[in-house]
């Protein structure tokens, strides 16, 4: 097998590639943050009676909250801010499909490239 000689990349081409990488990073990672799609999906289960008892805190817990500077009113939003674990099947299926698709593509495409590497490396000898 003949040895593959890659093309030399121009400076403009390198700058363009760097820009592509930067844009990809910010679109994929920054956009979900900007759109509020990232982070914990929690919501507050509000209570009318804001007492340590109603918040499910025993005297020991209440004394620690107070030591930390909280009152039942200020601790309410922390204690009642909960996850609600409901499995959203369509989203779960999309997530699984994206993950499986990603890994299948990764291993298959890598294998094609790996054969180039092995052929060139060992056919040279």
């Amino acid at each position: 097998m003949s040895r593959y000689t890659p093309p030399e990349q121009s400076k403009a081409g390198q700058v363009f590639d760097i820009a592509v990488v930067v844009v990809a990073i910010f679109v994929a990672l920054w956009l979900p943050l900007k759109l509020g799609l990232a982070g914990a999906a929690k919501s507050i289960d509000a209570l009318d009676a804001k007492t340590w008892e109603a918040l499910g805190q025993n005297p020991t817990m209440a004394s620690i909250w107070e030591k930390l500077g909280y009152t039942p009113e200020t601790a309410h939003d922390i204690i009642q801010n909960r996850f609600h674990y409901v499995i959203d099947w369509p989203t779960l299926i999309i997530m699984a499909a994206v993950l499986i698709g990603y890994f299948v593509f990764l291993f298959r495409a890598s294998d094609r490239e790996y054969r180039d590497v092995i052929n060139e490396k060992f056919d040279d000898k």
Partner: protein
Amino acid sequence: MTIALEPAAPAVQGDRVSLLRVLGPAHVWALGVGIVLVGEFTGWNFSADKGGALAALIVCWVVGLLYTSVAMIDSEVTSTVAAAGGQYAQAKHIVGPLMAFNVALFLVFAYTMLEVSDAILLGDTIVAKAGVEGLTHNSFIAATIVVLAWLNYRGVLMTLNVNFVITAIAYISIVILFFSVSPWTQGAVLKLNELVTPGNALPYGWIGVIAAFQFGIWYYLGIEGTTQAAEEVRSPARSLPYGTMAGMITLLIAAAMTWYVCASLMPWEYLGITYYPLWDAGKLTGSALLENLLFVATLLAALASANGCINDAARAWFSLGRDRYLPTWFSAVHPKYRTPYRSILFLLPIALAFAFIADLNQAITFSILSGVLQYTFMSINIIMFRKKWPLGSIRRGYTHPFHPIPAMVLFCLCVVTFFAIFLGFGSQLIAMVAFYFLISLWFHFYRYKFVRRGDQFTMPWPKPQGY
């Protein structure tokens, strides 16, 4: 973890930096524990938020099993593929260029987002300590990231030794806290029985335990980075398994002590949202000495980790440039300081941007996601490694026992962790995987043409079976 390029790099041939084998098992231990220990000072406790205090303990041990599998697998592959770059070099030799490209990106983003988390922790801790109205963490975050990047740019002589000392102080502070609160007695200082009760131990039931896996990863994330130093270790076959396993044992002990003290001092609802659980634990003991010790230790752990992260992320990015997976512009070594300075400078604004727009648990989730993608790769990588070069076909520095059980355990726990991330952070997971997918398409269909094929395989091994 830190890898000092310049003390170990007396010779530069073209843009290739050659490394000296100067490290022993103790250094490998310091590399791993140094970057990970900050996880005890913040992050792990968000697992209590997702599942309750008992869930945080359960995942501490189960995720410990995941990382034990990682350490076993990694020790075998790295003691054989003893090349700088760790998992990146492994992927190049065992799976292929596209996988190597992705693994390097996993490393870069796991470390860069960990650096972001460290900077946010440091800024928030200082602001909380100052207690000055109107003071924000922005200037402290910027100063941390810029100064550490500058140190890395200049080449941090003795970085590893400095980080070793910082890590040791932070670790000792956890031990001092543990023994100062009379852990053998309940009721005096610790009140575990009154804070973790049958009614609140698992507030979300077992699904909360699964959800807690997400932040359980943070107890140990980064220990696999010990392999980055493979080329600098005197005896990889001995030092890497010993150093990595010793690091895991150290971290398991620290994690158990941290959970026990924190869960015995504060309600799980507070434990689950605080940014500095160990500093809070110090405050709640009522001892000013412990409070100040844990405050300083929190800052030191964050600094040591961020410093190592900048160094390692830049090195992975530099490797991508050197192998032409990214523009070769990134592969330049500073003529005077012998550091990958362009990579350091390129990653600096990215870290700054995310430090200002993400909050702590979002940055940690980005880091965890990249880590779990990497562990999934590792579980498949070891199976391929044994298949392509069966035992006896090449000289292995270390052969891990019970193959393929650790790989299967690792893979299953990764699947559980993906599901855990889906529970509450699903959109973030899909966005991140979409990013890796798109950038992989870009690499495979465009960028790969710039890669020199045969140069990607440098180990003196026979042709792999099946090729």
